[in-house]
């Protein structure tokens, strides 16, 4: 009996001291974004591969978001929308179900809409919720559908400059 107790105790001890960060949190001092380091293995390598070396080439053009890599401001804005839609996929979905919310307002802002029409975007996306979020929806299709819905709405189409 004593032995069994001992084994249980020892196991409990060992598991208690397992690295907490193994769960995937970037174990950075003072809490650096786990997005960079922890939650997605492999991401760090992509990041390193791109930053390693010089910036005499295209990389730095992207870094500063300038037009000297071609594309210019417009394509940058569209890229920013995509990135935003990807990183806020779930919270955008909740906002559209509610017909309003901060994430949705920020998306409206990225789409070049004025503050006054942001609520309108909420109405439009809420009433078309089922069309936007089909079972195969991903960040890119959601964004595309939202933008084309906005384009067919007179108010939004008028106000939003980056559809």
């Amino acid at each position: 009996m004593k032995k069994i107790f001992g084994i249980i105790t020892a196991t409990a001890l060992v598991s208690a001291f397992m690295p907490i960060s193994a769960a995937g949190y970037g174990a950075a001092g003072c809490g650096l974004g786990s997005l960079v380091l922890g939650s997605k293995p492999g991401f760090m390598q992509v990041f390193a591969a791109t930053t390693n070396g010089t910036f005499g080439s295209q990389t730095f053009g992207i870094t500063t978001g300038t037009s000297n890599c071609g594309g210019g401001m417009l394509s940058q804005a569209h890229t920013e929308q995509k990135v935003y839609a990807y990183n806020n996929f779930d919270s955008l979905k909740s906002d559209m179900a509610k017909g309003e919310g901060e994430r949705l307002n920020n998306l409206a802002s990225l789409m070049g809409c004025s503050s006054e029409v942001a609520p309108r975007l909420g109405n439009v996306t809420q009433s078309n919720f089922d069309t936007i979020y089909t079972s195969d929806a991903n960040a890119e299709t959601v964004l595309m559908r939202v933008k084309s819905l906005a384009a067919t709405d007179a108010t939004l189409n008028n106000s939003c400059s980056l559809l």
Partner: protein
Amino acid sequence: MYPRTLLLIAMFLWSGIIFPQATENSVPASSSSSSENSHLVQIQKIAIEKKLHLKQYWLRLGHYKKRWLGGYKSEADGGLFFLAREGKVDPQQELIATLQGFFLGDAIHPTEMHPQCRFPERLRWLDVELKFKHLLPEVDCSRFENWKSESNIGSAQIVFASYYLNNPASLFGHTFLKLVRRNSNVNNDLLNHGVNYAANPTTLNPLFYAILGLSGGFPGTYTMFPYYLKVNEYADFESRDLWEYSLKLNEEQLDRLVNHLWELGSTHFDYFYFNENCSYQILTLLEVAVPEVDLSSRLIYVVQPIDTVKILKENTTLLGEVKFRPSQLTEYLLKYRNMSELGQDEVSRAISEKSLPADSLSVEERAEIFETILDFYDYKYGREIKDEAKTHKNLLLKERAKLGKMQTYNASEFIPQEQAVDGHETSQFRIRSGVLNSFPVFELTWRPAMRELIDDPFGYSPYLQMLMMGFTGRLYRDSDNEKLHFIFHDWEIISIYSMAPVQENIVQPSWSVQIGAQNLSLETGKSINGRTNMYAQAGLGPSFSIPVLKELLVYSLIQARFDISDSFGYGWRLAPVLTTGMIWRIFAAISLQSQFDYRHFVITDDLPIAIFENKLNIGFNKSFAGEAGYRWYPNNRNQEIFAGFKYYL
């Protein structure tokens, strides 16, 4: 691959994630014309005559600190930050080399940035002092200028992310900067910039992590992110409330901040978990922005993230208004607590049965219930939701959308009464005197960080204990020969209690980790017992807050304990431990804790130990508290009473 690429681009777009880097750190031989050369020599001479290299601002720009034995040494560790070979330890050489660098003509390697572009703030300040800009060769600094104009920064905030116990690096919270665009408003606040200073750990092994983190083994760097990534990470995934304090900086101060940030992008600092950490670096950055203030010298031994805000609040007029951004968990709890009892029951039922709220309820009530459950799921499955819960959530979303817009409770308007910045100071010095059996005892404790469960919870969570590197010594008067003995009593390497009461559909274990060394005097009843034991103890269990007395928490943990000491028969012993107790915030700053520990040793033949302890703590203000307590070891009838005084600093 696709999502990763997007993430990557997110950070690139936010520009400055990769600040400029160059491959060579010394200045190549100058090929500039002789007239430029004579100007340079002349200007360098004036600079030395004016002793610019000893001016406080130059020392701050180079992050130079006085050394104990005279001279200076920069805290920056990246070679690219210095133009002179001995730049790290010689502010004068660095100044000379910087001026020389500014005058360089076309000798710059294509992959390297010109010193004029790499050090915009050095250039600005030196030109104010020496007026030489019109003599400089024309250099294209479009990288820097584009970065600056596109960042379009109009104001700055300092953000405190509250304590997060599930990651050792975030135990004590985190501070970072938020740079706000000129055209920012409530509808694009998430598109602002987060600027983070943090270590880049090279290991996830907790032991190496701790050692390297404490000893400066990781490089710390500045990075810039879209603010929404920070909000996602802290508030959504980690359930940490964010406090955003606006900084009252004028245009000029803000400009210095942004310029210097660019300069720091090319370097790194050795990261020290306790002192040269995020909190400290942000203060040194602010010292460049606002040269009139002296902040970092206030920090001597240990700096904690909340100290950044505390120091700014207590010593400057830089802090403006505060905005509270509730975490996903806080948001859920606020909504839940705002509901009628009927609504709460519906939420709990729908979560456990994975069903929809009853049709008999009004549309408003149903909308409220839908949103509360959705917040619950977002809290519980922040990073990823799967299976049954995912299906249920999707159904809820679909049904919620059908109801149209509804006026529901808005958690973002909630402002907590107790601000983190107004809690007690973060280190403590404690004196206690008491009686162990019949011996008088006097005890001194120094705890660099941070609080025990019983400390006044104002501004902190009442359910957290976080102690690190606390040290206690005791004075005993020997009853036989009247001699005084000062002996080691206790070393708390780490002591954490994280209590998570089971409530409002949230079922989480409470847990504890204790590692340290302790004198065996209490256990043996012999006051002058020099023997110590090393211990490691950890475990988990449930805790409950009692409905009638909201501020009373009852807990019960099953733990495992391992002791090492040469005074044990085997040199070690092992025990399951039952820990049961309660903590009661009786009134505002007055708390009472009672705890019973029972250790039943296994394998070896050590006798079981029981400990019963009661403590009362009365917080007077941010700096002082009084305490009293009673400890009893029933199996060997040792008992101790004590009263003490805590000074937080």
